[in-house]
């Protein structure tokens, strides 16, 4: 990254981050035992769900117990054995009554007590809490949760990304910082950005094949002049620029197409969703992990429905003619585009097809201050309106009943020339006015506003939601986005600001600030924490009988599940209502996943409610209406996606590149350093030692650039693991095994140190490896493992076979690389001679052409070889 390309970050904040990071390195060592080694946690944030570290009660679990009061009305229920006892005695009695092994016991307040107990093996935490909650001395019991520092990116320009944070003065900020304590995304979640394409070379984005966030996409702009890349459909989603030169608009034959600079719109949108985060540069993304799938549907002056919808279908994995299959189908499609007019049949069909695959379309409302445009107005699409920093409608945003929710759209407050735009939405972009000229991040002077940028804020939130609960289909994802939104909308303190109204028509514009209502701006203001928490609830879905007859017994099955990492702990079926003379059905065993009831014998209906509860006490309900002819439910298993949607989305099995670390093994003496490198770009991985970001004083530390410093003393065990972890996908990890030694470094000596080998002849070499018990080496000729036919080959045991002809130059180097430490090797120089040395000269021979004397050719070859050897030694 070229730091000069980015606006300067506040140095004070940077220093603060460094101090904070240093503290974290120390604290990491303390908490490491509580974190799974596979979970990369650069700032020690909470795993999904804020669950207590132990998943079961074996081994010991920490609990907070609240004793019943010894006074007041609750005292009557107090166990007689507890009256007058100390807190320590109460804890001991509590453990004994509940057959717990009390490991630690500590009063916190007179009524709250911290304990660590050992319960019966296999008892789930939920079951234990339920059992202990029934103890006569206990008012409440809950896990002693492990809490983490809030996840704050180390990206220096994050401070300017007010919209992802929370603050009293910015009511519309979405509080992603608290959501990131639950999840920062999932490497398996793909969010498509259907836009102008993207700048793959932006250092805060980069290709997935080099460790970045951007998958290979596709270009669906079929009109060459609009595409501006020389062709129609192609496999390159790069944005070449969408500038329109003076007079070009009429050439393009597009009405209203006036001259303009390149927008880099897709790069801006992509950065808000998935800028590389924790890379110490640029901005942070709404998601830290997962991938962005860039799809070009827009070029100069925009794009046509035919290309855009082809891109939509392809994004969701639906085949499109003349385009190859999409290897990375998205679950979310961001469409920061549109224009006026009602939703067309084409969009309705595409959205329905995508919903059947569990794909949610998120679209911006438009910037005319009028009614919501297409595609944001289409049924099933999450239409996003723009709001100001204080939560009122930003003047330019379209609004109406089609809006699902609202998110910051950017507002400047200052409107004078040269004044900063105070609430710009900072993101990635390019400085080129025509062709790309250099990566930048927008700021208050090169500002970024529009409902285009409200949508990706919500798309990123949806990505976080799928990361914790991938089984949410498009409708459920949209419903929970709305459920988690902040409402009611704030009302301006300025009494002159009117309420927003539903536009009466295309020309009914409200181009200034107004107070949002749910009829105009959706369910509320996007709230990352609220929506991720909503996503964590289980999903109640029910399988209904295909047909129902009057008085027939019918079976209803709960098929919903819990969020990733959670489990369903219970089902319940209750009667909500009866109507039209229907009798209330007998519910029998109402706490099972399956219920058999009798349909009404005649007229009328009854409504049942299925409630699913998970082991974190989250619930979801589904109502089922049963008549004599049918059983129906909006939560019917047939009403969502037609494909299986797992709760835990797996990492991409076909990720574009495999991460590697070099060297793969090393022996490092105490107190010395060794540099490691990854196969990805430098700023796209973080380094760990034994699973701890940055390492520790005990096992060795490692810098952000991969420089490992061995500890001062040999740890026990002496072997540690240095790992590079992809920022974009923490499941992509590559490691090197490092042995810490107290002695000198590994060394390798090859014997003989030099040799002259005639073409086609062999020469054995040996390697002595010192200062390690691993004597294995890998033989190379001129750094090529095993050599080749031109330079000569070397066997695994060190036998060199000269090539059939003399190479140029005639000397080659044979080296033995220590398996214990790939940075250490020994070598020997070989001169390949033109003809075999006469055997008689070596052995004292027995006749033949030479007759016991060297012929002239051999002598010449030997002379040349010796001269070459001397030259090599001098060198």
């Amino acid at each position, binding site marked *: 990254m070229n730091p000069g390309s980015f606006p300067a970050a506040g140095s004070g904040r940077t220093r603060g981050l460094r101090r904070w990071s240093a503290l974290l390195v120390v604290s990491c060592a303390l908490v490491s035992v509580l974190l799974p080694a596979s979970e990369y946690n650069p700032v020690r944030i909470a795993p999904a769900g804020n669950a207590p570290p132990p998943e079961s009660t074996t081994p010991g679990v920490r609990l907070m117990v609240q004793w019943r009061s010894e006074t007041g009305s609750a005292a009557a229920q107090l166990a007689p054995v507890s009256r007058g006892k100390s807190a320590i005695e109460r804890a001991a009695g509590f453990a004994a009554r509940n057959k717990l092994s009390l490991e630690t016991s500590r009063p916190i307040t007179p009524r709250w007590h911290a304990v660590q107990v050992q319960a019966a093996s296999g008892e789930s935490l939920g079951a234990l809490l339920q059992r202990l909650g029934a103890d006569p001395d206990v008012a409440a019991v809950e896990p002693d949760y492990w809490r983490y520092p809030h996840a704050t990116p180390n990206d220096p320009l994050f401070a300017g990304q007010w919209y992802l944070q929370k603050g009293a003065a910015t009511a519309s900020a979405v509080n992603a910082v608290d959501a990131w304590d639950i999840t920062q995304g999932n490497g398996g979640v793909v969010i498509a950005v259907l*836009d*102008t394409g993207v700048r793959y070379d932006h250092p805060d984005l980069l290709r997935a094949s080099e460790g970045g966030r951007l998958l290979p996409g596709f270009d669906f702009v*079929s*009109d*060459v*002049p*609009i595409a501006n890349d*020389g*062709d*129609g*459909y*192609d496999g390159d989603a790069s944005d070449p620029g969408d500038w329109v030169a003076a007079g070009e608009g009429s*050439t*393009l*034959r*597009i*009405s209203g197409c006036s001259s303009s600079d390149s*927008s880099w*719109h897709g790069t*801006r949108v992509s950065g808000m969703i998935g800028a590389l985060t924790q890379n110490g540069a640029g901005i942070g993304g709404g998601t830290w992990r997962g991938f962005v799938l860039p799809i070009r549907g*827009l070029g100069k*002056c*925009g*794009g*046509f*429905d*035919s290309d*855009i*919808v*082809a891109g939509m*279908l392809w994004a969701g994995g*639906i085949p*499109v*003619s*003349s385009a190859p299959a999409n290897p990375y189908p998205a679950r979310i499609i961001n469409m*920061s*585009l*549109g*224009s006026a*007019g009602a939703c*067309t*049949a*084409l969009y309705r*069909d595409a959205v329905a*097809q995508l919903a059947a695959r569990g794909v949610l379309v998120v679209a*911006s*409302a*438009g*910037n005319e201050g009028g009614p919501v445009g*297409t*595609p944001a107005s289409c049924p099933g699409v999450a239409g996003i309106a723009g709001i100001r920093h204080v939560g009122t409608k930003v003047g*330019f945003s379209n609004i109406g009943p089609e809006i699902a929710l609202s998110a910051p759209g950017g507002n400047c407050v200052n409107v004078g020339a040269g004044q900063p735009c105070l609430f710009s939405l900072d993101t990635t972009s390019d400085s080129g006015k025509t062709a790309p000229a250099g990566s930048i991040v927008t700021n208050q002077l090169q500002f*970024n*506003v*529009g*409902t*285009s*940028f409200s949508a990706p804020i919500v798309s990123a939130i949806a990505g976080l939601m799928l990361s914790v609960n991938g089984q949410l289909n498009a409708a459920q994802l949209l419903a929970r986005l709305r459920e988690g939104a902040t409402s009611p909308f704030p009302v301006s303190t300025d009494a002159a600001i009117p309420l927003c109204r539903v536009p009466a028509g295309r020309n009914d514009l409200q181009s200034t600030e107004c107070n949002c209502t749910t009829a105009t701006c959706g369910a509320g203001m996007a709230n990352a924490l609220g929506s991720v928490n909503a996503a964590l609830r289980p999903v109640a879905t029910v399988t209904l009988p295909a047909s129902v007859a009057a008085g027939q017994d019918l079976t209803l099955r709960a098929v919903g599940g819990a969020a990733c990492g959670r489990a369903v702990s219970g089902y319940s079926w209750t009667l909500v209502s009866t109507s039209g003379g229907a009798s209330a059905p007998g519910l029998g065993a109402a706490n099972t996943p399956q219920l058999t009831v009798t349909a009404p014998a005649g007229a009328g209906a009854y409504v049942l409610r299925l409630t699913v509860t998970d082991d974190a006490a989250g619930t979801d309900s589904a109502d089922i209406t049963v008549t004599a002819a049918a059983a129906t439910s909006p939560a019917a298993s047939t009403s969502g996606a037609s494909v299986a949607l797992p709760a835990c989305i797996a990492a991409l099995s076909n990720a574009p590149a495999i991460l590697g670390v070099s060297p793969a093994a090393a022996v490092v003496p105490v107190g010395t350093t060794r540099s490691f490198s990854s196969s990805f770009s430098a700023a796209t991985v973080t380094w760990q030692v034994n699973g701890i970001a940055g390492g520790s004083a005990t096992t060795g530390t490692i810098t952000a650039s991969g420089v490992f410093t061995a500890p001062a003393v040999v740890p026990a065990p002496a072997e540690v693991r240095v790992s590079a972890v992809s920022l974009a996908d923490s499941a992509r990890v590559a490691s090197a095994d490092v042995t810490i030694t107290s002695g000198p470094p590994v060394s390798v000596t090859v014997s003989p140190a030099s040799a002259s080998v005639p073409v086609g002849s062999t020469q054995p070499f040996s390697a002595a490896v010192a200062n390690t018990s691993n004597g294995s080496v890998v033989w190379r000729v001129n750094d090529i493992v095993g050599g080749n036919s031109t330079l000569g080959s070397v066997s695994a045991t060190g036998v060199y076979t000269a090539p059939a002809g003399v190479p140029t130059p005639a000397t080659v180097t044979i080296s033995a690389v220590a398996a214990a430490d790939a940075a250490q090797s020994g070598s020997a120089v070989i001169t390949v001679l033109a003809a075999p040395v006469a055997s008689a000269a070596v052995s004292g021979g027995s006749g033949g052409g030479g007759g016991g004397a060297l012929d002239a050719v051999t002598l010449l070859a030997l002379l040349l070889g010796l001269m070459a050897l001397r030259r090599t030694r001098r060198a």
Partner: protein
Amino acid sequence: MRLTAAPLSDCRPSARALSSAILSALLLGGCAAGAGAGRSSTEVAAADAVPVARLEASCSIRVIAELAAPQPFGPGAPWLTDVAQRANVRLAQRQALGGRFVVLDVSTTERDPGCRAALGRLRNEPLFRSVEVDTLRRAQSR
């Protein structure tokens, strides 16, 4: 294949000279032939054997037609010929979008500002469930 012409995005009422007509016809042909590498392209005209040079297209427009009966790879030439003759338009298929939708370039030789008459005839075509103009959408930044 490459598109060599501008998109037929708007109806272009014209009383153009022969050279303009030739250019329009060539552009239309270019669009039809260059609808993207490997894409199917079928062009049929209402009037048989009309020399391209004499075709005075007074309107051209790109539409998205929803087929009344889905066809996996688009409607095909004979089918389009029938429709084109009935609607008195020239049709070129640019692309099938799934089995239900097809992108068509429409042109006529009649004077038809905004292609309103041609669109009206196509919308009355029983083989189409709907016919909508391929609308330009724009990025929504400011």
